[in-house]
């Protein structure tokens, strides 16, 4: 009898114009099971979840829910069946309170006070502490996620889908989330846990379905697997190991001293008295939960925001705080933003034209563009950095995230920067491309370039950086050499708790 299964999919396929997102996928989820769905970006995880949640219809295949065949035509119907989903990007209204946000998604016959009472009750039951009366814009990212989870739990789901839930959390917040999830599973709720983080899946999940290119490549018990074996299933190979060499830090290249800036938009962060240095031949990593001033700091360093006092940012001793991005680039400061499409590259323009965005070697003094030379430059970047998915004439939009990032990293690295600032170098990039990009960054460091890398992934920073800083609430911690840093310490600093006595390194 199949009624033992909470959810059973048989031969689910979904064809999109360019890709087959799911090809005869059939995962089965037991009651009370934490079931991981592991795969790279573009492996078909999100499509599969959307099919289960009714947001997308499969082309073929059958869905059985508690043994009964069903067609889930909409998320509303999915919720009626007992399926809830917490998206990676929250859908909360900033100006409303937590309780009002939850109320919005519920049956309209309930009174707000009743909803508030139930929120407190559910939150208490699962160890999720939230204050229902607080407006959402005052909540941290972790708290917002808890609001989303409580909202999902109020419908008494039998299956909870979580899409990359830990990508925005501090390590401590991740531990807290896991406690809640285990509690939920013990009480019989099944959980579908989408992630590409191998450690988490091994620590939390009972069962793991691995997807690659839309197909299931493995059904394993993650507790019995190693990171290497899981990664082999996920990408078909083990990611190449990085060669970490002892580095020799040289002269100070970038010095930030007493940088303070008022926020420019209502939901931004003020920067307070930021100070640090980056030396030639070293990588300084900036850790922190997103939304703690990284965007604002990057804009001030790149020159997109020129309000800073000139002397607050110096490059080789020259004050550059008020210089335009083009002037800074001329001095050797290059920047790779986290938004690739629309900021790092113009989506509709070709790779050749996008080369011209930051590279002006092919522009004559009179402002004439040598288009042949631009194309050759783009061709060189494509060849040297192994950018796949089109030539110099294909639009930036047509490339996958990983290949576009390889192109952007290549564009800046081949400009021979003296200081390279990178924001989220491997965010949304598949494992193979990520390893290549990290390798290129290390090579650049060994060649004597100064690098500042901002990332939300601690693993990445520990792998790449020589020194670490933490940014929290618009302030920057003192720096620690990676060899002396621990995940716990950096995690604590990410909540803004460092002793201020030592600031000023």
């Amino acid at each position, binding site marked *: 009898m199949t009624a033992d299964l909470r959810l059973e999919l048989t031969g689910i396929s979904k064809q*999109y*114009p*360019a890709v087959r997102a799911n090809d005869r996928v059939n995962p089965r989820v037991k009651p009370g099971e934490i079931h991981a769905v592991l795969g790279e970006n573009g492996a078909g995880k999100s499509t599969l979840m959307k099919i289960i949640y*009714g*947001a*997308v*219809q499969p082309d073929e295949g059958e869905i059985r829910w508690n043994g009964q065949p069903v067609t889930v*035509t*909409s*998320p*509303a119907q999915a919720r009626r069946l007992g399926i*809830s*989903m*917490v*998206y990676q990007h929250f*859908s909360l209204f900033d100006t409303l309170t937590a309780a009002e946000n939850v109320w919005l*998604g519920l049956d309209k016959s309930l009174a707000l006070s009743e909803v508030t009472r139930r929120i407190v009750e559910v939150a208490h039951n699962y160890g999720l502490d939230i204050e229902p009366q607080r407006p959402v814009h005052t909540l941290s990212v972790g708290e917002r996620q808890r609001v*989303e989870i409580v*909202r*999902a739990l109020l419908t008494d789901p039998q299956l909870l889908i979580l899409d990359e839930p830990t990508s925005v959390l501090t390590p401590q917040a991740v531990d807290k989330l896991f406690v809640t999830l285990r509690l939920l599973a013990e009480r019989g709720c099944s959980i579908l846990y989408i992630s590409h983080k191998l450690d988490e899946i091994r620590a939390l999940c009972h069962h793991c379905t691995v997807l690659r290119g839309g197909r299931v490549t493995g059904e394993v018990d993650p507790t019995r697997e190693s990171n290497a074996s899981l990664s082999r299933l996920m990408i078909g190979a083990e990611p190449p190991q990085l060669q970490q060499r002892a580095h020799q830090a040289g002269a100070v290249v970038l010095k930030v001293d007493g940088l303070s800036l008022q926020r420019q938009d209502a939901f931004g962060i003020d920067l307070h008295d930021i100070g640090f240095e980056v030396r030639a031949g070293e990588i300084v990593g900036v850790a922190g939960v997103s939304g703690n001033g990284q965007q604002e700091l990057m804009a001030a360093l*790149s*020159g*997109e925001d020129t309000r800073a006092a000139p002397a607050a940012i110096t490059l080789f001793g020259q004050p550059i705080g008020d210089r*335009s*991005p*083009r*002037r800074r*680039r001329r001095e050797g400061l290059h*920047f790779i*933003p986290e*938004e690739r499409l*629309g*900021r*790092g*590259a*113009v*989506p*509709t*323009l070709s790779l050749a*034209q996008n080369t*011209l*965005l*930051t590279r*002006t070697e092919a*522009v004559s003094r009179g*402002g*004439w*563009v040598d*288009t042949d030379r631009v194309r050759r430059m783009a061709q060189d970047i494509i060849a040297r950095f192994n950018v796949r998915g089109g030539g110099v004439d294909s*639009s930036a939009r*047509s490339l996958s995230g990983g290949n576009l990032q390889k192109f952007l990293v290549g564009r800046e690295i081949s400009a021979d920067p003296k200081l390279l600032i990178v924001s989220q170098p491997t965010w949304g990039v598949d494992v193979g491309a990520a390893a290549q990009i990290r390798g290129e960054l290390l090579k650049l460091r060994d060649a004597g370039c100064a690098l500042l890398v901002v990332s939300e992934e601690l693993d990445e920073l520990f792998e790449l950086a020589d020194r670490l800083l933490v940014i929290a609430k618009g302030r920057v911690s003192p720096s620690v050499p990676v060899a002396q840093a621990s995940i716990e310490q950096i995690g604590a600093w990410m909540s803004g708790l460092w002793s201020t006595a030592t600031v000023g390194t």
Partner: protein
Amino acid sequence: MFKLEARPQPSRWMSMLSPLLALAVTVLIGVGLFMLLGKDPLRGLQIFFVEPVKSLYALSELSIKATPLILIALGLAVCFRSNVWNIGAEGQFVVGALVAGWVAMQAGPQLAWMGRGVVVAILLAGVLGGMAWAAIVALLRDRFNANEILVSLMLVYVAEMLLSYLVYGPWKDPQGYNFPQTITFLPETRIPRLAGGLRAHIGTLIALAAVGAFWVFLFRTYRGFALQVGGLAPLAARYAGFSSRSALWTALLLSGGMAGLAGALEAAGPLGQLTPHVPAGYGFAAIIVAYVGRLHPLGIVFSGVLMSMFYIGGELAQSRLALPKSLTGVFQGLLLFTLLACDTLIHYRLRWQRRAAPDAADATATAKGA
């Protein structure tokens, strides 16, 4: 039933084919229109598409209409590509004509030393006039963040008032039997004609040269590239370090100058004096010309000629078929409307499907849900 399905890539082929498809649909609707009006559709089409290119004289008249349309549309294409919405080219055209007309009226014994060179001064004056009018828009946008769409449109009416005031008042020809018009400009101020007997003038050559110049500017200069990046992706322009203020000023001054040049050519060319009828709608029609021409200089040549055919066809339809002249506007509007509709096919393709898909509405409704 047919279903629209997103293409994985916008179709390049379709983006070139779309204006032709739009023209075909416009012609089809035109045939229906002629039949409803009780006219022979073939005769109607002939008047719109054959008569305007039938003879040298007809081509000369066509070039008189096409020249201002192409000149203005070139400037607007740069504007629209940089995401600056100047829809007041008509006003810049009028002020260009005014300033150029003023210079033309100064001609006489004291400017005799310039000889025919006075034409150059007249054209320059037109350019400066158009630029000045557009500069008001740029200034208000830059300084006070005023919406350039509204400001540029409103300034059209201010320019027309200014023209009326001058030709009804201080600039009125004393020997003009009290008609609202200036003196007829002296022969040496008139724009040189291409050939005797025809009204076509050297403005057509200027327009063709401008087409080349704008192509080079847009696709071979760094400045042109920077402007377009600003229009396509403002954040990328900021990242690259292209100033949005300088893009705003460049785009507006350039398009204002081109509209002013067209105004000067019109005033010192076919008109030969200023009357309240200087604004003929070229500034607005050029918006359609720019779009139908895909904001590309070469495309604008074709769409400019096409729109001129509608102008002339409308006039001919009035005299030969006894149809109202507003048919011109109907055709122009139809063309823009069908173009916008056909452009859907650049990003989507039609697919035959047996049953209606029920999930589309749900998917959008639940994007916010959860």
